[in-house]
């Protein structure tokens, strides 16, 4: 059915799945491992937090699980509210995980966790200058997305709605505009609630979808991981197939020509 392999490319690297997985919120590492397998994701996010010195909580177990799963790590700067903190966190992530890839998050509001645009731009510029491959978590503003791409971000990651809200894509029009506005991959990040949201993102032209809470906090995370995987594939195929235009009225799918007439028009069947 597909002639050429349809792989996602970010910063020159081929990634075999268009579903990226966040590791936050899984009730156990076992479920995380099973969900990674079911999702077929090849890139997963990981955060940096202070070492908890109590026995058995030193963070090594997570690294082991992710290494076992054979996935690439995408460190994030979650929780950073200033460009300065995000830059330092990215530098620490590079040291900890031996990757110069970073999912850049700079948060501007506690309730909505919406990005802080000026701090985000400042951090992106600094990190790109230091050789990082920056995937920028951003609002669904096409102008901001273009600014980030112009700075040299390897991908833009617009939100569908606030992190963990499960509200889906609140402004599909803007997501489609972002796809037109930038030449780098667009990864729909945040707000995905269920499989149809992921499919819609792909139908709008996104190159990939990032899901975290939608999978981790589902009643059955492994089943939801499988559903998201299928949805991303379905949405991608539908985008390529080219959907029919929306119309206000019906268009018959069966031709009118050759239709039988059993009685004069207007006569009652008796």
């Amino acid at each position: 059915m597909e002639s050429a392999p349809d792989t996602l490319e970010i910063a020159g690297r081929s990634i075999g799945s268009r579903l990226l997985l966040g590791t936050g919120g899984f009730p156990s590492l076992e479920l995380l491992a099973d969900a990674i397998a079911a999702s077929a994701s090849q890139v997963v996010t990981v955060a940096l937090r202070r070492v908890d010195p109590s026995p058995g909580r030193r963070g090594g177990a997570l690294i082991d699980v992710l290494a076992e799963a054979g996935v690439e790590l995408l460190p994030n700067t979650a929780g950073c509210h200033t460009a300065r903190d995000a830059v330092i966190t990215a530098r620490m992530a590079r040291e900890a995980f031996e990757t110069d890839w970073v999912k850049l998050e700079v948060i501007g509001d506690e309730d909505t966790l919406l990005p802080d645009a000026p701090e985000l731009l400042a951090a992106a510029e600094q990190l790109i200058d230091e050789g990082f491959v920056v995937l920028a978590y951003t609002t669904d503003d096409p102008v901001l997305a273009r600014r980030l791409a112009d700075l040299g971000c390897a991908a833009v990651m617009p939100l569908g709605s606030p992190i963990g809200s499960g509200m889906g894509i609140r402004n599909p029009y803007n997501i489609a505009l972002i796809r037109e506005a930038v030449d780098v991959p667009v990864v729909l990040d945040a707000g995905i609630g269920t499989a149809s949201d992921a499919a819609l993102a792909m139908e709008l032209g996104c190159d990939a979808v990032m899901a975290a809470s939608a999978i981790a906090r589902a009643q059955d995370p492994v089943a939801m991981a499988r559903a998201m995987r299928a949805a991303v594939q379905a949405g991608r195929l539908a985008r390529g197939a080219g959907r029919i235009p929306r119309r206000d009225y019906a268009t018959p799918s069966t031709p009118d020509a050759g239709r039988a007439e059993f009685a004069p028009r207007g006569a009652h069947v008796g």
Partner: protein
Amino acid sequence: MILLNGERSEVRAGETVAQVLGRLGLERDARGVAVAIDGEVVPRAGWDTRVVGEGARVEVLTAMQGG
């Protein structure tokens, strides 16, 4: 006084980063760990030689589920 991960610690000025990590139960070869002193990353290669000064803020971070 030296702040270790935001808390007053028993770390004394002159200790190496590796010694500080030891206080947290971390081996020198611990994976997924990064250290910053006063906001500046200390590369792994410097853990044995870099010492902590009085009044320093030391952050020792590791992998956590997130994002």
